[in-house]
C-alpha cells in the first residue's frame, strides 16, 4: 500500500482510487474517519487508520455503516471535518439517518459520505446504484472520473459541505476504487483542530442549520436552498468538461470510470472528430445550464454510466422542459437498450453502442485469434469453483451442518448472511445456504421461520452469521427471536476477523482500527445475557460439532446460539507454523471405488487436495495445503495421514 501521508506537494504518486480519496480527505484536514469494511470501499479507512495517530486524526472501524455515519456526523457537529465510507449496501443501512441528517444539516465541520458501488456485483450480493439516494434525499453528489479527481473532488467536497451546510456525497465504482493511477499531491494542512459542540445556533449560512427547533417542511425548503447553492458551484465546476468537435454526430454524456471507457471507445473507432464527450463530475443537482449548452452540439445523445440510467433520466427530465422551439435530440442509452442497465461496462460495450447508433461495423480482433487467446489463458487456470481457502474453518462448519441436518432428517435448512460463508450457496459449503440477503437478514428470516409451528412447520432452522456480521446487524434479530420464543439456532462463524474484506478488527477481536487494544465484547457472554443457551464448538472437531448441533436441534424450544470458534486460516497462518504435515497414503486411497467414491476431491473439495486422474488417487497440493488436518478426519479409508509438523 502506498503511503498516503507523504508530505511532498506537487509530486506524483501511484495510488489506487481509495487511497486517493483518503489522501484527499487528509489534504482537506479531516479529523475523523469512520467506516464499516465492504468491498470495494475498504481501503479508504484501511489506509487512513495506520497513519491516523501520526497525522493526529481519529479513524475507526465502526460496528456498522449507520453507526459510522452517525459517529462522523457527531464529529461534524463538534466542528471537526469527518468522512464516512461504505460500499453500496451501507447506503441502505445508513439511509434512515441520512434522511434526517439532511433535514438538520451538518455541523461546522464538513461532512462527506463516500459510497463505492460494485457494478457486476463482483464482491457483493446485489448490484445497486447508490446515486439515486442523492436525488431522493437532496444530497449534492459528485463522481470522480479518474484517480486525480478522486483526490481533488474529496478535498473540495469538504469545502462544499461547509459552504452549503449539508452533507455531500462522492460516488465511486470498483474500477476507480481499486485501479491505480498517478495522483499529483497537494498540501497537507498543519493546523491543530479543536472540537467543541456549539450549543448556540449557528446562523452563519443564513439558513438555520443544525439544532433549531423548526418544523420539517420548513427545513425541507431550506434544504432545497442549500441544493441551489451547490448547483451554482456545479455549473462552473472544472470536474465537468467537454472533449470533441463543436458540432458532433454523436454526443456521449458520461461520468466516473465510464468516461475512461468512452474515451477509449472513441479513440478505437477513430471518431475523435465526429463524437464529443461531455464528462460530468457533479451529478446532482444536475448542472442543467451546462448540459443544455452541450445538448445543442448533436442530434444524437448517448449516455454511458454505470448501473442505473441516473444521468440519462435526469437529462431527459430536463429536456422535457426545454423551450418548445428547440431541436429535440434522440436519446440513446439504457432506455433504448443500447447500453445494459446491469453489469459492469467496458470499452467493448461502449464501442458496441456507438457502432450500433452510427451504423458502423467494428471487429476489435480476429474471432479465431480471440478464441485461441482465451483457451490459452484458461489452460493455466486450475479447474476449481469459487471456494473457501484451504484450511478454512467454514468448510468444516458447513460439513458438520450438512451432516447434522441430514441426520436430523426433518429437512432442516440454513438461512444465510453476508461474508465468506455466503459461498455456502454453492459447492464450497455443500449447497447448505438457502437464503442470502443483507447483513443480519439470515437471523431475522430465521426468527420468522421459527415462529411457524402453528402452521405445521417442523423444519429446523439454522441461521449462519459471521462474527463481524453478528455485531453489525444480527443482535436485534436475535433479541427478537429470543423474546418472541422463535425456534432457531443462530450459528456464529467466529473466525476472529472481518475476513472477506481484509481482516479488519471488530469488537470481538480485541484491537481497534488504529491498532490499540480494546476490551473484547464477548459474543457468548452477550448472547447468554440475553437469555439464550450458548454452545461454543471447534468446527475442526467435526464429530463433536455435529453432535452439538443435532442435540440443539432436537431440544428445540426457542432461539439458541452455537459459536463456531476457529481463527481464519489466513490470519492464523501469518502467526504460526503449519499444525500438521499431511500426505496421502496411495496404497490406502481407494479413489473412485465403492467405499469412498473420492469423497475428498468430489464432495469435501478443499483446494489443498488434488485428484490425480492418471493414478486414480488423491494427493495433497503441498503448496496450497495449510495442514489443518480436517481431511484426514473425513477420509473413510484412513488414507490421508496427518502428522504433527
Amino acid at each position, binding site marked *: 500500500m502506498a503511503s498516503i501521508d507523504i508530505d511532498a506537494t506537487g509530486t506524483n504518486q501511484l495510488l489506487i482510487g481509495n487511497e486517493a480519496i483518503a489522501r484527499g480527505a487528509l489534504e482537506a484536514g479531516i479529523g475523523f474517519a469512520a467506516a464499516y469494511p465492504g468491498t470495494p470501499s475498504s481501503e479508504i479507512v484501511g489506509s487512513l487508520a495506520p497513519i491516523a495517530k501520526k497525522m493526529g486524526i481519529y479513524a475507526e472501524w465502526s460496528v456498522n455503516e449507520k453507526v459510522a455515519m452517525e459517529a462522523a456526523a457527531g464529529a461534524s457537529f463538534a466542528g471537526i471535518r469527518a468522512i464516512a465510507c461504505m460500499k453500496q449496501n451501507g447506503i441502505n443501512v445508513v439511509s434512515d439517518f441520512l434522511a434526517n441528517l439532511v433535514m438538520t444539516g451538518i455541523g461546522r465541520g464538513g461532512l462527506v459520505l463516500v459510497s463505492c458501488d460494485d457494478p457486476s456485483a463482483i464482491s457483493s450480493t446485489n448490484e445497486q446504484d447508490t446515486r439515486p439516494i442523492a436525488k431522493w434525499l437532496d444530497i449534492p453528489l459528485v463522481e470522480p472520473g479518474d484517480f486525480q479527481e478522486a483526490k481533488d473532488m474529496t478535498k473540495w467536497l469538504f469545502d462544499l459541505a461547509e459552504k452549503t451546510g449539508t452533507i455531500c456525497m462522492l460516488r465511486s465504482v470498483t474500477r476507480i476504487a481499486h485501479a491505480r493511477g498517478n495522483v499529483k499531491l497537494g498540501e497537507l494542512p498543519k493546523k491543530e483542530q479543536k472540537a467543541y459542540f456549539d450549543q448556540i445556533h449557528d446562523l452563519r449560512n443564513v439558513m438555520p442549520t443544525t439544532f433549531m427547533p423548526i418544523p420539517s417542511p420548513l427545513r425541507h425548503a431550506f434544504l432545497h436552498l442549500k441544493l441551489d447553492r451547490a448547483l451554482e458551484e456545479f455549473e462552473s465546476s472544472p470536474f465537468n468538461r467537454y472533449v470533441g468537435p463543436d458540432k458532433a454526430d454523436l454526443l456521449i454524456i458520461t461520468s466516473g470510470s465510464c468516461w475512461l471507457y468512452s474515451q477509449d471507445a472513441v479513440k478505437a473507432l477513430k471518431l475523435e472528430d465526429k463524437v464529443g464527450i461531455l464528462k460530468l463530475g457533479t451529478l446532482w443537482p444536475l448542472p442543467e445550464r451546462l448540459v443544455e449548452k452541450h445538448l445543442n452540439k448533436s442530434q444524437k445523445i448517448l449516455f454511458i454510466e454505470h448501473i442505473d440510467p441516473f444521468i440519462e433520466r435526469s437529462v431527459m427530465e430536463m429536456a422535457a422542459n426545454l423551450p418548445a422551439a428547440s431541436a429535440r435530440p434522440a436519446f440513446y442509452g439504457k432506455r433504448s437498450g443500447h447500453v445494459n442497465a446491469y453489469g459492469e461496462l467496458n470499452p467493448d460495450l461502449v464501442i458496441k453502442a456507438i457502432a450500433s447508433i452510427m451504423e458502423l461495423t467494428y471487429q476489435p480482433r480476429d474471432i479465431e485469434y480471440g478464441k485461441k487467446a482465451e483457451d490459452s489463458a484458461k489452460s493455466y487456470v486450475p479447474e476449481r469453483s469459487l471456494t473457501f481457502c484451504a484450511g478454512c474453518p467454514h468448510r468444516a462448519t458447513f460439513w458438520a451442518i*450438512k*451432516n447434522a441436518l*441430514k*441426520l436430523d*432428517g426433518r429437512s432442516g435448512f440454513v438461512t444465510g448472511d453476508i461474508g465468506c460463508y455466503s459461498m455456502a450457496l454453492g459447492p464450497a459449503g*455443500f449447497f447448505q445456504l438457502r437464503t442470502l440477503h443483507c447483513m443480519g437478514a439470515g437471523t431475522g428470516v430465521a426468527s420468522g421461520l421459527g415462529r411457524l409451528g402453528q402452521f405445521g412447520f417442523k423444519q429446523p432452522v439454522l441461521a449462519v452469521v459471521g462474527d463481524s456480521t453478528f455485531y453489525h446487524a444480527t443482535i436485534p434479530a436475535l433479541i427478537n427471536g429470543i423474546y418472541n420464543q422463535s425456534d432457531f439456532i443462530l450459528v456464529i462463524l467466529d473466525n476472529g476477523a472481518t475476513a472477506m474484506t481484509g481482516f479488519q478488527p471488530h469488537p470481538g477481536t480485541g484491537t481497534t482500527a488504529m491498532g490499540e487494544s480494546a476490551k473484547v465484547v464477548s459474543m457468548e457472554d452477550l448472547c447468554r445475557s440475553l437469555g439464550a443457551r450458548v454452545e461454543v464448538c471447534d468446527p475442526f472437531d467435526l464429530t463433536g460439532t455435529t453432535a452439538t448441533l443435532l442435540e440443539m436441534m432436537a431440544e428445540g424450544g426457542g432461539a439458541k446460539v452455537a459459536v463456531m470458534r476457529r481463527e481464519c486460516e489466513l490470519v492464523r497462518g501469518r502467526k504460526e507454523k503449519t499444525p500438521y504435515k499431511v500426505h496421502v497414503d496411495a496404497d490406502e486411497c*481407494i479413489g*473412485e*471405488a*465403492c*467405499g*469412498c*467414491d473420492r*469423497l475428498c476431491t*468430489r*464432495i469435501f473439495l478443499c483446494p489443498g487436495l488434488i485428484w490425480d486422474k492418471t493414478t486414480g488417487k488423491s494427493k495433497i497440493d503441498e503448496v496450497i495445503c495449510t495442514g489443518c488436518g480436517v481431511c484426514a478426519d*473425513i477420509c*473413510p*479409508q*484412513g488414507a490421508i495421514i496427518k502428522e504433527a509438523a
Partner: protein
Amino acid sequence: MDTKVKDCKELLNEVVEAGLCALCGACAGGCPYLVSYKGRIVLLDNCTQSEGQCYEYCPRTHTDMDAISQRVFGVPYSEDEVGTTKEVLMARSTDARIKERAQYGGTVTALLSLALAEGLLDSAILTKTADDKTPSALVAQSAEEVLQCAGSNYMACSTLETYNRLPKDNNRSLGIVAMPCQVLAISKMKKDPPQNRPTIDNIKLVIGLFCTWALSPDGFHQFLREKLDLAQVTKFDIPPPPANKFDAYTPSGIISFPLDEVRRFTMATCAYCLDMTAEFADISVGSVEGIEGWNTVIVRTEAGARLIEMAKAKGKLETANLPPQNLAHLKEAALLKKKRALNEIVKRSGDKNDLLYVGLSHRLANKLLA
C-alpha cells in the same frame, strides 16, 4: 425385484423408503455416505457408484438362498422349517452371574465368554443396552464386556454398521451375535466378499438369535420413555404365549404392557421376513417354550458344534434334549412365519412369481405359498 446390484439411491428407493429396511446396518458405515441415525438409514451425500455394496449386501435386495446355503453349509437351501441343522438341543449356562443377567439360559453369553477366553475369538460384536435403554453395538473383548451385553430389548440395532467400520486390514478373529436379517446379510458377504471393507473371513463365529419381529428403535424407545423411568428398568421380556404381554422389570416390580400395544412399533419389514431361527448362523439360540431358564439351541455348522462341545467339556454349558413337542412347536412357528411372510410378499408384489428379495426355488416357493 430383479437380481441386478444397483446404486444407493435405488437402495433407498426399493428398501428404505419402501418400508423394508431392517436396520441391520449392512449398508452403513462401509462408506462415508450411508450411516444409521436414530433408527433411520441416512444418505449424507450423493454417491456415484452404479453398483453399490450397500445394495448388494442388503438382506432385502435379491438374495439367492441356494447359493448362500451352498457357501455356508455346502448344500442347497434346506427345506426344513428351521433350516440346515446338525443338532437341536436345550442348553443353559452354569455360571450364576450369567444366569442372573441373561434373558433365558445365558447360552450366548457363556459361549462367547468361553470363545474369548480360549482365544478362539479376539473380539465379538454384540448389542448393548445403554442405561437409557437405547441399543448400540459393542465390540467386546472380554467376558466382562460380553456380560454387559446379556439380555434383549427387542429393538433393532444396526450392529453391522459397526462391523463395517472395523479396520479393514486386521486379521483378528471375530464373533458376532446377530438377528436373522443380519445373519442373512453376513451370509451374502460370505458368498461375495466385500471390497475395501473388513475381511469377511475374519468372522469365525455367527450366533443367530431367534426372532419373530423386532421393534423400531426410534418409535418404541419414545413410547418407553413416555411410560417408564428407563434408568430404573433392569430387564425387558416377552414371555412365551399365551402371556401376550411385554414386561419391564423394575426395582418396584414388573410393569406389563399388552403385547398389542407394543407390536404397533414392529418394524414394517418383519412382516416380509421368512427367517425365525437365523438359518445361516453357526449356532442359533432362542427361548424354550414353557421351560424357564433354558435356551433352545440349533447347531448348524462344524464350527458351532465344536464350540458347543468345548463348552460342555469345560463345564460352561449344561445341555439337555429338547422335548419333541417343543421341537414340533418351534418348527410349526418357523413354518408359519415363512408362509405368512411369503404371502405378504406376494400381496405386495401382486405376482406369485415376484417374491421381491427372496431368491427361492420355484418348487419351494410354491410349496410354502400353497
